[in-house]
C-alpha cells in the first residue's frame, strides 16, 4: 500500500468519485461561528478496509465521524457514504450503517437478548439475498462473547460487557460500514484481544469497512489497514503504520550483545547498521534485536512537527510521495 492516499487537491476538484469507495470525502469543511474545525479533509475508504482515525483531542475526529454518520450538517465539501450524501440518507441507507458511540447508558432495564432481538426487527425489511438481516440474536451474542449474560439486564453488565453489547448493537444489521468510537475503553486485555479478533472477522468475512477512532495507538497499529491522522482540521498523514514510520524516517532501535555486554544504538537505517555490525564483529554478535519505531513514536513525531508549524510542508510531503 502506498503511503499517501491523500489526493492532490488540484485533481480533487474534477476527480470522479471512486467507484468502489465506501466513504469518499473531498474537501470537507466545518465551521462553528468563526472557528474552522475542519478545513479541507480528504480521504477514501474501500470495502473491507479497517481505518483508524487518530488525532489530538479537538482535532475534529468526532465532528468528521458525525458528519459521515449523518448526525451533523457540514459547512462545505463533498461527502459520499455508501454512495449517498449522508445529509440526504434515507432509512435503507441507515440500515447499511452500524454506529457504536461512546457513553451509552440507555435501555438499562432491558435484557441483552431482548434488546438485540428488538433492534434486529428494524433491519428485517432490508434483508437481501446477499446479506441476511438481522444477525440472529443468539448467534450475535455468541460472537461478542455475551452468551452467559444473554438473560441479564443491561444495568447488571460490567463496563466491558456493556461495551461488547454496544458493538453487538452496532452490527446487528450486518452493516457494510461500521463506525467505532473508542471501542475498547474499559476492556481487560483478554476482552480487548477477543474484540480485535471480532473486528478482523467482520472485515475479512463480511467485507465490512470499519472506521474507528481510538487513543490507543497500539490498538490502531494492530487493527487498522490504514491510519489517518487528523490535526488542525486536516488529514496530515494517511498510510499503513509501517509506511508512516518509514515515511517519517523515525529511528529504529538496535540491541545486541558482545562479550557479555549489552549495547543499544538508535539509527534511521537499521539494515545498514546491522550489516556493518556483522562485518565488523561477525560471530561475536548475539541477542540481536531490531525494534522499528512504533506507531506511537511516529504519531508523536508527526503531531510535534505539525504543531511546530510544519503542517503544510508535511502534507505536501505526503502528497508527493503518493504520486
Amino acid at each position, binding site marked *: 500500500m502506498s503511503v499517501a492516499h491523500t489526493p492532490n487537491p488540484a485533481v480533487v476538484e474534477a476527480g470522479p468519485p471512486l467507484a468502489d469507495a465506501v466513504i469518499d470525502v473531498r474537501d470537507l469543511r466545518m465551521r462553528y461561528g468563526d472557528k474552522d474545525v475542519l478545513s479541507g479533509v480528504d480521504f477514501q475508504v474501500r470495502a473491507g478496509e479497517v481505518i483508524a482515525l487518530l488525532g489530538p483531542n479537538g482535532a475534529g475526529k468526532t465532528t468528521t465521524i*458525525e458528519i459521515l454518520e449523518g*448526525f451533523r450538517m457540514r459547512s462545505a465539501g463533498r461527502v459520499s457514504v455508501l454512495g449517498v450524501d449522508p445529509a440526504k440518507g434515507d*432509512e435503507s441507507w*441507515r440500515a447499511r450503517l452500524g454506529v457504536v458511540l461512546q*457513553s451509552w447508558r*440507555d435501555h438499562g*432495564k432491558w435484557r441483552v437478548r431482548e434488546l438485540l432481538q428488538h433492534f434486529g426487527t*428494524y433491519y428485517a425489511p432490508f434483508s437481501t439475498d446477499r446479506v441476511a438481516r438481522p444477525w440472529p440474536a443468539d448467534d450475535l451474542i455468541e460472537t461478542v462473547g455475551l452468551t452467559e449474560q444473554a438473560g441479564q439486564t443491561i444495568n447488571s453488565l460490567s463496563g466491558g460487557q456493556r461495551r461488547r453489547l454496544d458493538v453487538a448493537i452496532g452490527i446487528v444489521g450486518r452493516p457494510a460500514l461500521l463506525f467505532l468510537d473508542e471501542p475498547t475503553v474499559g476492556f481487560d486485555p483478554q476482552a480487548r484481544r477477543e474484540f480485535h479478533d471480532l473486528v478482523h472477522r467482520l472485515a475479512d468475512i463480511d467485507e465490512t469497512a470499519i472506521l474507528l477512532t481510538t487513543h490507543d495507538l497500539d490498538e490502531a497499529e494492530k487493527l487498522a489497514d490504514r491510519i489517518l491522522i487528523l490535526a488542525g482540521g486536516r488529514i496530515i498523514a494517511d498510510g499503513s503504520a509501517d509506511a508512516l514510520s518509514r515515511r517519517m524516517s523515525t529511528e529504529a532501535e538496535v540491541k545486541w550483545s558482545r562479550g557479555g555486554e549489552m549495547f543499544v544504538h538508535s539509527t534511521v537505517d537499521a539494515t545498514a547498521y546491522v550489516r556493518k555490525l556483522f562485518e565488523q564483529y561477525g560471530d561475536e554478535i548475539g541477542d540481536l534485536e531490531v525494534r522499528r519505531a512504533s506507531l506511537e513514536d511516529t504519531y508523536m513525531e508527526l503531531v510535534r512537527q505539525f504543531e511546530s508549524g510544519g503542517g503544510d510542508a508535511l502534507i505536501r510531503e505526503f502528497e508527493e510521495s503518493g504520486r
Partner: protein
Amino acid sequence: MNVSTTPIKAGLARGWIETKHTMRSYEGLVGFLAPSVIAMVVIFFLRGVDIEGAPVSLGSMSLPSLIGLNVAFGGLLGVVQTLTVEREDGTLLRAKTLPGGMTGYLVGVITETSIFVIFGAILVLVPGLIVFEGVAFDGPGSWLMLAAVLVLGLVATMPIGAVLGSLFSNPRMLGLIMMPVMGLVAISGIFYPLGQMPPLLQGIGQIFPIYWLGLGMRSALLPSDMAAAEIGGSWRYLETFGVLGLWAVLGLVLAPILLRRMARRESGSAVAERRERAMQRIT
C-alpha cells in the same frame, strides 16, 4: 417484510416491553400506583361531603374528575418525562442509529403512555363504581362517552407533551413544567367546582384540556341531573369535543416539527455534553 409498517410494529412491541419493565420495577410500580391511590383515599373521605343542591357527594363528583385528571397528567407529563430522560441517557440517539428507529421510538412512547393512562383509568374506575354512590354507567352511551373522552384526551395531551419534551432538554427542568400544570389543576374543577370560582379563573381554566377532560368524564359517569352543577348548567358536549379537538390539532401540527428538530440535533457529542453537565451538577 414491509419497510413502512415494520417500525410501527416494532414500536408497538417496544411500548409493550417498556410497560412490562416499568411494571416489574419497584419504583415504576409505585410511581404508577401512588398518585391514584393517594387521590382515591382523599376522595374516599369526601363521600360524606355534600354540595348544596346536588344529588351526589363531593367525593362522587370528584371521582370522574380524577379519571380526567389522570388522562391529562399521564398523557402530558408521561411523554415529557420520557422524552427528556431518554434524550439524556442516549435512548433517543440509539433510536436514531436504527432504520426507522425514530418512528419506532415514538410509537413506543405513545403505546406505553396510552397503556398506562388506560390502566390508570381502570384503577380508579373499578373501585369508584363499587364504592361511590351515584357513579355509574347509564347504558352504552356512557361507555362510549368515557372511551371517546379518554381517546381524544390522549390525542390532545400527548402531542403537547412531545412539544414540551422536545423544548426542554434537561430532566431537572421538569419542575418548571410541573408548577404551572399544578396551578391549572387548581382551576380546572377537578377537586372543586369551577363554576363557584371567580370569572377570570373560570375563563383561564376553560382554555386548557384538564377542565374539559374532567367535565367529559363527569358527563359519562354521573347522573344527568348533575349537569345543573356545571357551568352553563349543561354537559356541553360540543364544547368538550371542540376544545379537546383544538388542542389535538395544535399539538399534532407542532409536535412533528419540534420532534424533527429535536431528533436532528441529537448526536454522540450532544449526549456526551449533556452527560458532562449532569456530572458537574453532582460533584
